[in-house]
């Protein structure tokens, strides 16, 4: 018994030492929304470059910002760009800036579960803001019914579901609501975690999806891919041009196209409620957060190598996973920005 234990322990120790040879390990953490995309990318990149392992953990956008600022991870990822205060905090801690690199585009959709309603409901921004404010309490409220003539909506209470924990998805959703409702902007604001006026919390996109699926007369917001994988109904949202658009990759790309022309140099831009007839109004870029100075030369080269691969070959994997690719202009701009990483 003792001998077996000793052999086992020695074996573990050896395994620990041997496996440590030769592999460059890079750790990143952040948004859960692009996790399917990133896990595919890092896997593919590892297959092409076996000595580079990029380990990405989806701990949430806020986590990505926090940990990259603390310096405990090599890069972060977020669905909501860092605000000026957070940028300053990073600058103070690291004596260099943090760079945002958009990777893909995604959409947040309103999903619901109303007994008897199988098609896609139309939601005006006022209806969504009213529902999440707790002012629109019944499904047959005129704000909803007027946009859905011909659909029989029940007179039941709406059960609102939101994310329990901090999340980039919440950031995109509240960013949209802040743009379309002055009241929301002043009283609730946009952030990865807010003080919700009403509603239940679900853990993760999956928690919200699960709660909506199992609770009649409920509404929640989730990433497009989660709605599609779980085959739950989601509604059309009226965009800034007055058209009711159902979330799709084309709609998201249309929303980004407008922004591409006026993209700021630091890539921090919000594309919710974007102009254009085909634009889906609750779209967002998602970003990788890379420190502008990386002292470890091997890591720096590996990260830059990954980023240029991501901007060229990597984009081809996006559509299969229900993410929209970056517009060409943005890709070109990013390729030039790569030289900022030193």
């Amino acid at each position: 018994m003792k001998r077996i234990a000793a052999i086992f322990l020695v074996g573990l120790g050896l395994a620990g030492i041997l496996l440590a040879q030769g592999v460059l390990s890079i750790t990143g953490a952040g948004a859960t929304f692009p996790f399917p995309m990133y896990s595919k990318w890092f896997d593919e990149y590892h297959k092409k470059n076996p000595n580079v392992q990029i380990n990405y953990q989806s701990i949430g956008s806020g986590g990505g910002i926090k940990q990259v600022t603390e310096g405990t991870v090599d890069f972060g990822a977020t669905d909501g760009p860092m605000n000026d205060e957070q940028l300053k905090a990073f600058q103070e801690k690291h004596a260099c800036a943090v760079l945002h690199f958009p990777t893909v585009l995604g959409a947040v959709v309103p999903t619901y579960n109303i007994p008897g309603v199988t098609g896609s409901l139309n939601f005006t921004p006022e209806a969504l803001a009213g529902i999440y404010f707790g002012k629109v309490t019944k499904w047959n409220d005129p704000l909803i019914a007027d946009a859905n003539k011909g659909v029989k909506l029940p007179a039941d209470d709406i059960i609102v579901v939101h994310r329990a924990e901090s999340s980039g998805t919440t950031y995109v959703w509240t960013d949209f609501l802040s743009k379309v409702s002055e009241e929301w902007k002043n009283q609730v604001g946009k952030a990865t975690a807010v003080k919700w006026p009403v509603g239940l919390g679900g853990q993760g996109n999956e928690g919200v999806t699960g709660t909506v699926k199992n609770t009649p007369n409920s509404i929640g917001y989730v990433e497009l891919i989660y709605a599609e994988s779980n085959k739950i109904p989601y509604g059309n949202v009226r965009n800034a041009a007055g058209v009711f658009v159902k979330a799709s990759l084309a709609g998201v790309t249309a929303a980004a196209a407008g922004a591409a022309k006026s993209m700021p140099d630091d890539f921090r831009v919000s594309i919710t409620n974007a102009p254009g007839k085909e634009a889906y109004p609750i779209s967002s870029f998602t970003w990788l957060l890379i420190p502008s100075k990386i002292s470890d030369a091997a890591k720096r080269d590996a990260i830059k190598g990954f980023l240029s691969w991501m901007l060229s070959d990597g984009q081809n994997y996006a559509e299969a996973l229900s993410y929209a690719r970056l517009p060409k202009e943005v890709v070109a701009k990013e390729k030039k920005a790569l030289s900022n990483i030193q």
Partner: protein
Amino acid sequence: MATTTTIVPSGGPVAGSRSFLSRLRDGDEIARLITFLFAASVVLITALLVYELWQGSALPRHQFGLNFFRTSVWDPVFDQFGALPFIYGTLVTSAVALLIAVPLGIGAAIFLAELAPLRLSDTLEFFIDLLAAVPSVIYGLLGIFIVVPLMRNGIQPQLKQYLGFLPLFKGPAYGLGFLTAGVVLAIMIIPYIISVSREILLSVPRDQREAALALGSTRWESTWKVVVPFARTGIIGSVFLALARALGETMAVTMVIGNTPVISPSLLSPGDSIASVIASQFKEATGELYTQSLIELGLVLFLLTFILNGLARLMIVITSQRGSGTGLA
């Protein structure tokens, strides 16, 4: 139970008057020092933990002071933080858990200690102890997939139908909420109540039982009216220990409580608890005040457990001094 000091014959005139260095040579003093260091490290670690929690929550303590305990607002955007809904949620879910687990647990312990034959009692105890070893993540998953639908579709509508006039059962039946979290917690803490209570009941001296039976009481009467009261403080001690576990339970609760910081008299309402909100938000809390407020919540929970542990120790010490023998900890 202090160890007896033994005089080791080693040549000096009187045991206590040997110099430090010569005692050191014996090896005993080294042993004493080394083991003391390890024991002291336990105290140091605990003290360090409290210190870290205290330091790590400096900002909200200065900014909010005692208002932290009077506000129900938790607003990460506008930097308003109040602990009240979480303290409420922690206490309510633990109370519900105890209300369910204590009668069931003590009942089971009485059965195992007094009424079951020894072999059966040991076998059942073995399985019940295994229940305590189930990881809390799994309890959370079972909570989501089994308890929540059961609550939403079965139990909660029944409660509303028959007891809906009470403020305890008002509001829609979501399935998630205080009641569900309390039920899941109850399942998790029952093994602790059963194990410890059974030990304490087993340690009640035989003469107590025999005296009762000699005076003509029935089996049940001797158990309920003599043995259990004798072990009363120890059993209460076990309840406090189970409560300490319930207060700090994180994963299972955060998956079924609804994560809504509200204070509501209704058990059907969703809520939140201290451990649950720390688990949900700590990883992503950006901003010093936000992060430190979460740490202050951790401090509050630590204090709650501190007080309860103290009470439990006191109870158990009282039982020991009354001669029930095992002096359990």
